[in-house]
Each structure stands twice: as C-alpha cells, then as structure tokens.
C-alpha cells in the first residue's frame, strides 16, 4: 500500500477525542470525563471506501506550545507526521477556545477537518452554530458530532478526503462586511492576541448564544466544588465508595468463593493430585493438610484462589466505582477541593488523578503522572504512589484476611503519603508550578462506557495479573525447595524481629511481594502472629518494594521524567526510609499502646 496520510485526532483535553476515535476505528480505548484520560497515543486503522488509513488518538493539548509531557507527545506527533489529516475536535459548548486551536493548526498549514463534538450539549446550553457559515468561513469542512452516541461519525469519515489547508488571511478576507473592521493586518505568525480577535470575528458571524436556565447538573456541579458543601459531599462520596467496595468484595469472596474453594476445590485437588510429598505436589498443591485455600500455598490452590476468588471480585467492585468517578466529572472537583492540601507537598490537586487510578492498579497511576508539569512533581507522585498506595488487588486480600483493620491501615498509609510527600518536597530540587485546571460539567456516566471500561480492565487483569500471581506462588515454592527462603529468614530474622517485631517467617511474603502485593499478603495469613504483628507485616509489605509491573513502569516513565537512575534511585531510597521509619513508627505506637 502506498504511504497513506495519517489521520490525527487533535484538540483540547476532554473534548471527546477518544470517544470519537473509538467510533471511527471501532476500537475500545478508555473514555472518561476528565482532562488527561489519554496520556499516550493510540493508533488504529480507519476503514474508508478505498482502503484503510492509520488513525491516531493524540493526547489533548490546549495549545501547540506544550506545558506537560502528555501535551508534548501531542505536538511531537503533529510535527513528525508527514502531511497528516488533522481532525480538530472541538467541544461545541466552548467553541471559542476550540477555534483558537483550530486557527493555530491551520496557521501551521495542516490539512484539517473540524468536528464540532458534544453538539447535543451545545444545543441544550443555547449555543447555536451555523455549520455551513462556519465551514465557508474557515475554508475547511465542519461536521457536528456526538461522539458518545456515534452521531455524525459517518459524515466525518466521508469528509476526511475533503480535508484541506486554509490560511488565516483567507479567513479574514471571507469575513462578512461589518464584522470587526480592525482586523486589517495579517494574523500570521505567533500573535495570540490577533488570533483571538479573529476567533471573536468568526464566532460573531457563525455562532449565536441563547440564554438558558442552568440545569440541575450545573447547580450540583457548583455545590460540589464549593468548600462548605463540597467537602462534606466528598467525604460522603469517598466513604460510600469504600463501603460499596468492601461490601461487594466481601459478598462475593466470603459468600461464594471461600466455600467453593475451601469445601470443594481444595479437598478435591489434595486427594486426586498424585505424588503427595513430592516436589511437584508441593509446587502445585502445597500443604496436603491445609484446610483453607490461603494456607495451602500451591499454584493451583492458593494461587487460583487469590487470583480468582479474592482479587477478581475486589477489583471488579473497585473498578466500577473508579469508572463512575472518572465518567461523572467528579474527579476534577475532588482535585480542586484537595488542591490546598496537595500544595503542602509540592503537588497540586490534579495529582489526585494518578493517585485515584493507583487504587485500581499502580501501573496506570504511574503513567498518569505524565499530565504533571515538572520532573519534580512527576517524581514525587510516582514515588509516593508506588510506596504508599495499595492497589485494589492488595486491598481485596487485606479485606478478606483482616477486614477489621483494613480501613485503619489504609489511613495510616495515606498519612505516610503526605508526611513523606512533605519531606521529599523539601529535599528534591525543582519547581512546582501553579496550574489552572479545567472543570468538566457533571455528566451521567453512560452504562455502555462503564461496562466497556470494566471489561477492558478485567481482561487486562486476567491476562497480565493472573499469570503473575500463579508464577509468584511457583517461584516462592521453588525458593523454599532450594533452601533460599530458610537462608534469607536466618539473615533477615534479626532485622525483622528487632526493628519491626515480626517473625522471620514473613520472609516468603517479602519475596512474593516482588511479584504481586496481593500474593504477599495472602502468604502472611499462614503465619501464626498476633493481630498487631499481622497489621505490622501488612503495612511492611505495602510500603516495601513495588511489584514488578509497577517497577517496570517506574523505569519506563523515569526515562522521560528526569532520568531512570534519578527516579528509580530516589524511589528506592524513599521506600527504604519509609519502610524503616514509617514501619518503625507503627511499632513504636503499638509498643506505647501496649498492643505490640
């Protein structure tokens, strides 16, 4: 096939580029209602009448002068593509600022088509756009779309071959007489003020605004962002999310999977698997006398149970509440409410996005730090979340083992997040610029999108996490057989009992923690410990080394976030300090209270 031009979807953050991409290319990438959902480009093939062309979903950018890593990706894409067709996706409800970017793109000589997305919302809000007039004026095709519903997508596809460049001076010439007479000169070059004047002139001749009464969502949107009403609401929302998560995870795990595995699967496989006492039996089934699936610790017993019986229901529940949080537009409001607190640790409220995503899984959390502006902020956030934020899988196992303490452990870890954040903020050089954040309107999450997102993430879990859990059990068992575990227990025993007050039997859990945190915590269940020792060891495993997937992501993101050595070295130093200090503090507290 001849080199076909690439179609780039470009526009401001949160205008629906990913939604449009999914409808155009039949793909299913994540769509949400907050700026910065897409931090990496996604490429797919777009079927046209005469063959296919590559189409790319580009991260959102406010202008062609990038301010963060995700925006830089967008601009690089534009510069590297050879004669691309640019689909400028514009939020029709905020057509002015969208047009500003359109003009910037046209000024650079790109062939373009304009997609006026969220057309339905614009009509409801009293923004009437004369599409024909706008298209004539701009000199490029303009197509109204509602990407989430698939409206206008076919039109957009068929106009792609009519994409063409247009010059700003041409637009000025086409302005109807009487509209803004002082636009005599040329707007070429980088004069934002002149470009805005042209935007105003275009809007004046193609857009009319009707007065509309604010909707219920508008009122609610305001109340949720004001401190007096918003903070109690936020507490209620977060507590509600937690309550839902714990209830649903417990319902499925305790109600169905525990009986299924303990009463049926475990006794059955213990009796039918051949070669009891042999190494293969030990590897795959584990303890022949175990009566519950946590303690058996074989690949096919504990491995399967943890992955499917405990973690799967937990992350299903957690991803559901996260999807609602992402799609409703509430996440940006949380960011505003927490902004002042995050400023104390050198971040800003939008750091809540990687943090919230990390509760699902640390890996996308680390990737989401690309929307932060400076290397310092990225380092701070990546390190803190990989050290202090337990992922959904880990929380699921904690809930199953020590439901009465899980909430407190989470609060202790979050406190560590802020305490160590404040310390690192003082130690690490670099700036923490202040930012302006766009607050999207509150929207009702669409069930179809929530279910797509859920199935995408669950599929990701089944294909990338489950093998790691099973392999993790296998590796720990092999190390047992090889005598490594006993050796490490002797070596680390004094530190473990001396500093943390936990028995040296926790060593296998620490080894498993390299692979998966959920597995590490599951492993703790088999060790006879006091309740405090259990809490202590769970906190240790949480803080201690990030799982291998997160670690790989830290290395990958470190390359663009200030150097691998700096990022990974800093993160390791932080986690060692956090492990000994924050862990030690917990033991000290326990000793003082007389429970340790």
């Amino acid at each position, binding site marked *: 096939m001849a080199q076909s031009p690439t179609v780039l979807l470009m526009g401001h953050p949160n205008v629906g580029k990913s939604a449009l991409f999914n409808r155009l290319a039949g793909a299913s990438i994540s769509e949400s209602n907050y700026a910065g959902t897409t931090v990496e480009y996604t490429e797919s093939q777009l079927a046209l009448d005469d063959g296919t062309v590559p189409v790319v979903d580009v991260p959102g950018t406010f202008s062609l002068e990038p301010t963060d890593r995700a925006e830089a990706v967008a601009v690089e894409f534009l510069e590297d593509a050879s004669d691309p067709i640019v689909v400028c996706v514009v939020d029709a409800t905020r057509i002015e600022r969208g047009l500003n970017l359109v003009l910037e793109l046209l000024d650079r000589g790109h062939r373009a088509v304009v997609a006026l997305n969220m057309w339905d919302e614009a009509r409801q809000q009293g923004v009437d756009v004369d599409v024909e007039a706008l298209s004539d004026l701009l000199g490029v095709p303009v197509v109204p779309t509602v990407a989430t519903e698939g409206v206008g997508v076919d039109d957009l596809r068929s106009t792609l071959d009519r994409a063409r460049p247009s010059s700003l001076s041409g637009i000025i010439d086409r302005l109807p007489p009487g509209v803004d007479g002082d636009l005599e000169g040329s707007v070429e070059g980088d004069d934002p003020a002149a470009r805005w004047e042209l935007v105003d002139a275009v809007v004046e001749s193609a857009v009319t605004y009707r007065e509309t009464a604010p909707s219920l969502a508008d009122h609610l949107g305001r109340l949720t*962002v004001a401190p007096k009403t*918003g903070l109690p609401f936020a507490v209620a929302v977060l507590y509600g999310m937690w309550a839902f998560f714990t209830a649903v995870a417990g319902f499925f795990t305790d109600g169905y999977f525990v009986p299924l595995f303990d009463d049926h699967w475990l006794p059955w496989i213990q009796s039918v698997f051949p070669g009891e006492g042999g190494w293969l039996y030990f590897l795959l089934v584990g303890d022949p006398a175990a009566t519950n699936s946590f303690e058996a610790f074989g690949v096919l017993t504990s491995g399967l149970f943890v992955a499917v019986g405990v973690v799967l229901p937990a992350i299903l529940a957690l991803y559901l509440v996260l999807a609602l949080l992402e799609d409703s537009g509430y996440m940006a409001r949380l960011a505003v409410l927490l*902004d002042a607190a995050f400023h104390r640790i050198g971040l800003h409220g939008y750091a809540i996005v990687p943090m919230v995503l990390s509760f699902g899984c640390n890996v996308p959390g680390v990737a989401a730090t690309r929307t932060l502006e400076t290397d310092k902020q990225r380092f701070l956030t990546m390190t803190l979340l990989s050290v202090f934020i337990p992922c959904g899988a880990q929380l699921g196992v904690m809930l199953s083992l020590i439901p009465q303490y899980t909430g407190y452990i989470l609060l202790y870890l979050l406190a560590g997040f802020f305490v160590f954040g404040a310390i690192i903020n003082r130690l690490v050089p670099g700036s923490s610029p202040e930012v302006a*954040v766009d607050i999207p309107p509150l929207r009702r999450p669409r069930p179809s999108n929530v279910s797509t997102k859920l199935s995408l993430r669950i599929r990701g879990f089944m294909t990338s996490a489950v093998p790691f859990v099973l392999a993790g059990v296998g590796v720990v068992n092999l190390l047992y057989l090889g005598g490594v575990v006993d050796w490490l227990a002797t070596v680390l025993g004094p530190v473990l009992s001396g500093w943390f007050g936990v028995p040296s039997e926790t060593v296998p859990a620490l080894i498993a923690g390299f692979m998966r945190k959920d597995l590490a915590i599951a492993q703790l269940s088999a060790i006879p410990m006091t309740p405090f020792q259990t809490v202590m060891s769970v906190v240790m495993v949480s803080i201690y080394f990030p799982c291998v997937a997160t670690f790989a992501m830290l290395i990958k993101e470190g390359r663009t976030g200030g150097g691998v050595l700096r990022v990974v070295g800093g993160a390791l130093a932080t986690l060692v300090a956090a492990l000994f200090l924050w862990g030690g503090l917990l033991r000290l507290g326990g000793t003082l209270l007389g429970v340790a």
Partner: protein
Amino acid sequence: MDETRATHAGESAGESSADGQGCPKRRQCQRGRACKRLVDLECGETGRIECVDCERRTLESMGVRPGKRIEVCTKHPFDGPVVVSVGRSTVSLSRSHARQLDVVTD
C-alpha cells in the same frame, strides 16, 4: 509550610518581572475604583477581564482572556484555588494566577 508558600509567590513574582517589560496593558489598569485583582473579588462577584499576565498563555488558551466576562464561583481557604466561570467553562485557578488577573468589576 510558609516557606513553600513564599517560594510559590517568589517564583510567580519573578516570572512576571523577569522578562523586563511586564505586561503593557497591566500598567494601564490603575487599581482602585472598579479595577481589582481577581483574588480580591468576593464569591459571586462578576466582572470583565482587563488583563491577563502576559506569561500566562495557557490561561488564554483555556478561554480566560481579556474582554471576557468572569464570575467568581468559590474561593478555597488555606490559599486554595479560586474557581471561576468564564464563557461556558468552569476553571480552577491557583491563587497566584488569581493575583495576576485584573478585572473590572460590575
């Protein structure tokens, strides 16, 4: 705590004076009477943006630009952000942004 705040303020002050020329329009706005810094507006007050610090290109591309009507929705305590509504957008500005925006109040 205060140290961090001071650094933020210092940075932003340095930014606007570093280019040596400052914002030409900014000097025209003689504060007093109707022209105020955005940070000095109360919740619910409205006005017209007179001048945005020239360095703040991102603000302009978000639609916060001279000539537009602006309304202060909420101001967060502890030096928190100022949420404004401009055009059809709601934008959360940091305090230092709000100090650099001049508004002619109604």
